[in-house]
């Protein structure tokens, strides 16, 4: 069984793992609430960052 590492958790949240790797993380999430909490925290951070900067997309572009 492939060992779970922090880089793997990050890669999972970032959509960078293949199906096998994702399955390992999802299994670990089911078995370990601590891991599930870490994943949730990383997703929350990502969402918070996107929300903070999303308004820039809708700003009128300075006249060019």
């Amino acid at each position, binding site marked *: 069984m492939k060992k779970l590492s922090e880089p793997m958790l990050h*890669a999972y949240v*970032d959509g960078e793992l293949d199906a096998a790797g994702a399955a390992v993380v999802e299994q670990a999430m089911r078995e370990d609430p601590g891991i599930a909490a870490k994943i949730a*925290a990383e997703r929350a*951070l990502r969402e*918070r960052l996107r929300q*903070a900067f999303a308004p820039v997309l809708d*700003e009128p572009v300075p006249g060019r």
Partner: protein
Amino acid sequence: MHQRLCELLPRMRRFARSLTGHPQDADDVVQTAIERALARASQWRPEQALEPWLFGIVRNAWLDEVRARQRRGRVFAPEEEGEAVGHAGVDAHAVVLSVEAAMARLPEEQRTAVALVLVEGLSYKEAAAALEVPIGTVTSRLARGREALQRMLGDNRE
């Protein structure tokens, strides 16, 4: 190239804002980046992904601006603060910061990795191409950046 630049302009502006932390700096950097992209349009191969190439130009334009300010002896607080707090842990009792303030406190390398991957949604490979570094460099800067942000934004549940 001109048409695609127009389409990507909002994202370039968002990336520049997350990187510079200041609307005017962001607009100046994007202006420079657009001029350089157009000047170098012949260097871009259509099979290359355009976004990493463009984001790399934006980021380098910002680095050039930071260096120019340092040469002029101008105090540039966010970058200096960032360098200082980059490796040591942030005080666990620190006031919870806004996202913008927390990003400003990251060292530029970590802030850029966070901006490219977590805000702009580039893949690790695309971010590595934009920064012209190995993927491992991107992921380690990203890991340090998000760890620091978790501490500063008060999301630490340990």
